[in-house]
């Protein structure tokens, strides 16, 4: 019955809330306003904090000065094409409702020209729907990784310079089966679209390689105590794939260590051992293999970025998925604005065209967009050693269909509780 994992239903925008247009025409008023939308409230606040740091590094790189080091502080001293650039910071609590309300505030109340964000999967779907009703505003994703934001029924003015949740797992399936020799893996993730995409991304390749996933465990959103779920896990597996993030990984690893499964190798989802999380995990993180779009690279871009990040925010964790993601999106936005000299009077035509053709070199490698305005970029395999995630393999130029034929890939049922499957 669930035809689609990530998209509830028809995505032609509806309702009155989305239909209001800006209070006044923003373009050509001498100010370019950029809205920054992340999650500074609720359980994912730590991720939002990192995201905002990354975005601000891009702004500072472009010549701005920070108004302060707080999460919600803006910037000053940046002009593009003779126009002052202003940053308006908004926050959600990771629910689509809150993201939508925040986007409405940015677009309709604060008259921003570009929205950069949001942070999490389902928020992105809501914002994409909204984008369709506001074609004279440009939307550049944050780190939201739901596949269907761009894979199916995309919005013409929504751009994503980060890869999606399935792309983030590219390579891990092969690596687990071939290099690590795991023939059977059990997965555990929260019951919503982002983990579906993560597990789906893993299994697409893992099952194709011949691996087996005897059981997928979906815990209700907000689960903290995993002990009873752990108790139901089959014990005759080679590894456990944990598609959790933030505090949950911490809770999970603690509990698995105190169960009969103690010592089983752990494969991590992309946000399981991300830079901002690994700190809290301490020793328990050692040895976890995971995949993700951001790695500690030996490139000038990475080094410059890492240096700038610690300089601006001494308390920041090492570069991770969220800050680098927001950095990349913000950098692409600023580059495009610079290219067109800040000209937005044409209903953002020039800006959107420029963005579509943009290629950026991000701290995590080169990025270009496909015809749906979705990033094609490198992905990396990691292992945690000595308290840090160390890159052990690069998967170059991963596209959204993971190398499969687009038509065929889109025709498959979307990732969800039961799909894909190879018990």
């Amino acid at each position, binding site marked *: 019955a669930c035809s689609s994992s990530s998209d509830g239903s028809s995505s032609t925008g509806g309702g009155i809330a989305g239909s209001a247009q800006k209070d006044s025409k923003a373009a050509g008023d001498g100010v370019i306003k950029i809205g920054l939308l992340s999650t500074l409230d609720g359980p994912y606040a730590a991720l939002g904090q990192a995201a905002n740091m990354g975005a601000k590094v891009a702004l500072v790189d472009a010549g701005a000065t920070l108004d302060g080091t707080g999460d919600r502080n803006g910037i000053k001293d940046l002009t593009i094409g003779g126009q002052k650039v202003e940053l308006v910071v908004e926050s959600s609590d990771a629910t689509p409702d809150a993201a939508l309300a925040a986007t409405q505030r940015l677009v309709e109340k604060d008259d921003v020209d570009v929205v950069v964000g949001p942070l999490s999967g389902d928020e992105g779907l809501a914002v994409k729907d909204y984008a369709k009703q506001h074609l004279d505003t440009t939307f550049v994703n944050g780190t939201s990784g739901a596949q269907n934001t761009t894979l199916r029924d995309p919005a013409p003015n929504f751009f994503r310079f980060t890869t999606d949740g399935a792309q983030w797992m590219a390579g891990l399936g092969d690596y687990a089966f071939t290099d690590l020799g795991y023939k059977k893996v059990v997965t555990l993730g929260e019951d919503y679209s982002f983990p579906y995409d993560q597990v789906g991304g893993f299994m697409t390749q893992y099952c194709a390689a011949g691996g087996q996933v005897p059981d997928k465990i979906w815990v209700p959103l907000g689960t903290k105590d995993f002990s009873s779920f752990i108790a139901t896990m089959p014990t005759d597996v080679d590894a456990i794939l944990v598609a959790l993030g933030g505090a*949950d990984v911490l809770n999970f690893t603690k*509990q698995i260590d105190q169960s009969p499964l103690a010592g089983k190798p752990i494969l991590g989802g992309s946000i399981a051992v991300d830079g901002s999380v690994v700190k809290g995990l301490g020793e328990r993180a050692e040895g976890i293999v995971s995949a993700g779009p951001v790695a500690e690279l030996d490139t000038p871009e990475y080094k410059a970025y890492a240096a700038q990040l610690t300089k601006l925010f001494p308390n920041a964790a090492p570069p991770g998925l969220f800050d680098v993601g927001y950095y990349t999106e913000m950098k692409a936005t600023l580059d495009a604005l610079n290219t067109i000299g800040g000209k937005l009077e044409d209903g953002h035509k020039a800006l959107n065209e420029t963005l579509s053709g943009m290629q950026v070199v991000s701290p995590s490698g080169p990025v270009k967009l496909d015809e749906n305005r979705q990033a094609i970029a490198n992905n990396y395999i990691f292992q945690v050693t000595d308290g840090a995630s160390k890159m052990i393999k690069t998967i170059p130029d991963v596209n959204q269909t993971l190398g499969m034929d687009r038509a065929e890939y889109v025709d498959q049922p979307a990732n969800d509780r039961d799909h894909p499957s190879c018990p």
Partner: protein
Amino acid sequence: MLAVAAAISLAAFCGRDLASNPLLFVSTVLNGVSSAALYFIVASGFTLIFGLLRVTNLAHGSFYLAGGYIGYSIHEAIGSWLLALAGAGLAVGAMGLVFQVLLLRRVASDPIRESLLTIGLTVVVADVTLSVWGGTALDIGAPSVLDSSIHVGTLVYSQYRIALVGFALLIGAGLYVLLQRTRLGMTIRAGVDDPAILATTGVNVPFLLSLVFGLGALLAGVAGVAGGSYLSISQGEDARYLLISLLVVIVGGLGSVPGAAAGALLVGLVEAFAQVHLPTYSVLVTFAVMIVVLAFRPQGLFGGVQ
């Protein structure tokens, strides 16, 4: 009759479960019981405040959260788990006392306004803890003596979780004696019934009520450390534990310590078994059971007639 039918089907269910996978059954029961222990510790302060002051303290989760964070910092600073427990308890207790004296007392006798004030506090505490401790999940870590597992045959179980059960029993017994057997307990109950008249017998009622509120907050702070060592402490835990406390206390019956224990046990076990047998709808099962219990016994399992 209904109870008998329920008991029979419950026994049948357990028997089948036990036969099909004894290890799973035992560990599920253990999980349920140890969760229940934590829930009881969290809810004990809530039942005190809720049952005695008739204040629906919706900031209870925030007290828990603050306790966890403060405990974390103390633990980081001096490395003693026990001191962290005590320090967090005292700090949060003091916080609750100040809140009660400065704000809550002014709207005493209007239950709606009281709970609304506590909602306001929730918002503030969440915002402040976020700016102080950040959004990352923090792990206090169990005390080193308990930080390992017990092995019985193929069964592996966390020592800390078992110790929690003992801790819960201790708190429960202490509270029961305080409320039912001491004059202070009686005075507190009288203060809830008719504060104005109790005052004419020479009791400083506002002071007494503040004390109770402080004690409830203290228990929440202690629970924060216990829970932060059991799992971890992070933003969002406040709402979670508030909801759990509400469930436990209401199912058990207002202000009744044995009731809270029964409520915690029911919630913990139902949750554990539902997660094993019906993972997708486990939360629904937990709440459905609560609704059914309350529909048949509106005053909770152990609650007297209002």
